[in-house]
């Protein structure tokens, strides 16, 4: 193995990035526009704006879309199944946080 390379880099919090267009979301998630439109229709993603060309997404949406794509690819579920899985995962996270906050 070669000598390790070394670099310094400043990270940005991905979920807090905002104002991403539909095209940028597609590029970040490497998915087709139609797939994202279907995910919005299914309620997996809830962008600001009414029309696709006005939609504005955040980094949180990007992460959510990536998970939805992985669940569909790896588990063979459809959009509705991915939406349900994400909703249940959200609820598990909330319950875990509540449990932890109670000590």
């Amino acid at each position, binding site marked *: *193995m*070669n000598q*390790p*390379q*070394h*670099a*310094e*880099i*400043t*990270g*940005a*919090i*991905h*979920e*807090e*990035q905002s104002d991403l267009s539909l095209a940028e979301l597609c590029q*970040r998630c*490497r998915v087709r526009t139609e797939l994202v439109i279907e995910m919005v229709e299914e309620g997996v993603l809830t962008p600001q704006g009414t029309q696709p060309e006005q939609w504005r997404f955040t*980094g949180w949406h990007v*992460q959510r879309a990536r*998970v939805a794509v*992985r*669940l569909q690819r*790896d*588990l*063979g579920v459809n959009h509705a199944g991915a939406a349900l*899985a994400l909703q249940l*995962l959200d609820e598990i*996270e909330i319950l875990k*946080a*509540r449990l*932890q*906050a109670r*000590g």
Partner: protein
Amino acid sequence: MEFKDYYKVMGLARDATPENIKRAYRQLARKNHPDVNKEAGAEQRFKDIGEAYAVLKDPEKRAAYDALGTHREGQEFRPPPDWNANRAHGRDPREPFTDAEAAEASDFFETLFRHGFGGAQPRSAGGVGGADAHAFQADGEDQYAKVLIALEDSYAGTMRRIVLRVPERDDDGRVRLREQQLDVTIPRGVRAGQHIRLAGRGTPGMGNGKPGDLFLEVEFEPHAHYRIDKRDVYLDLPVSPWEATLGAEIVVPTPSGEVELKIPAGSVAGRKLRLKGRGIPGNTPGDFYFVLQIALPPADSEAANQLYRDMAAQFKSFQPRAKLGAST
């Protein structure tokens, strides 16, 4: 290299039908998918299952694997000398592995079913019908890693050195691993579960393809005293009965330093005192909560015991279980 018992990995008999294999994969994938199962070890199990499924679902690969005979999992193994003879050439378009995953696949898979089987090209290089990897253009894959920080680091920001094993192609188009050290500045205000995106630090692209991104998922180290709920931070704060009853001003620790806290007179156990905006920082900072716990002094002397007896006499009408309907 070590033998991989793909049937054992998937909990299947060697005569499993394609339907059995698919069903077992779906069940195991649902159980161990890293987006669903956050337990330690789930991600590795998911990769093992994916590797086993990539072989067993493909009739040609499965037949070749079966022809190797039965060996124990982990047993030292060498492929037969004629392994790559009479195989059809060309990449399997259903190949499920990405470059990053291929770099993490077992030696067993790499030797028998990647480079040694059917002359398969790695995924992002193939599928266009040619053999010269340099002629292709494809974007690199994103990569993921976890980074553990203390809660206090989120208040102040911090730096973490991470060592990546980055898959790289050599001149023959083979994937090899190279170590890369990154000193990453973790921004103030990051929360557990969020990702730090390092643009262009994922797998390199092919040809003029763009490199992928590296995502660092942030986890907080467990803390002995603080609990976290999204942006809010909680601390159980022990106070004496007289501090709670009579009120007091005390100095207490928080992740952003010590603060002077006023305990209002007449406080009871479980009362929450909020320090607005002193939770995890950000555009909308969280709040910090002290949750009062009443700590009783030990009755470890005759004088202390006498004090408790005096209190019992003084508070005869006090009914701590009145809400339960109990009168004594």
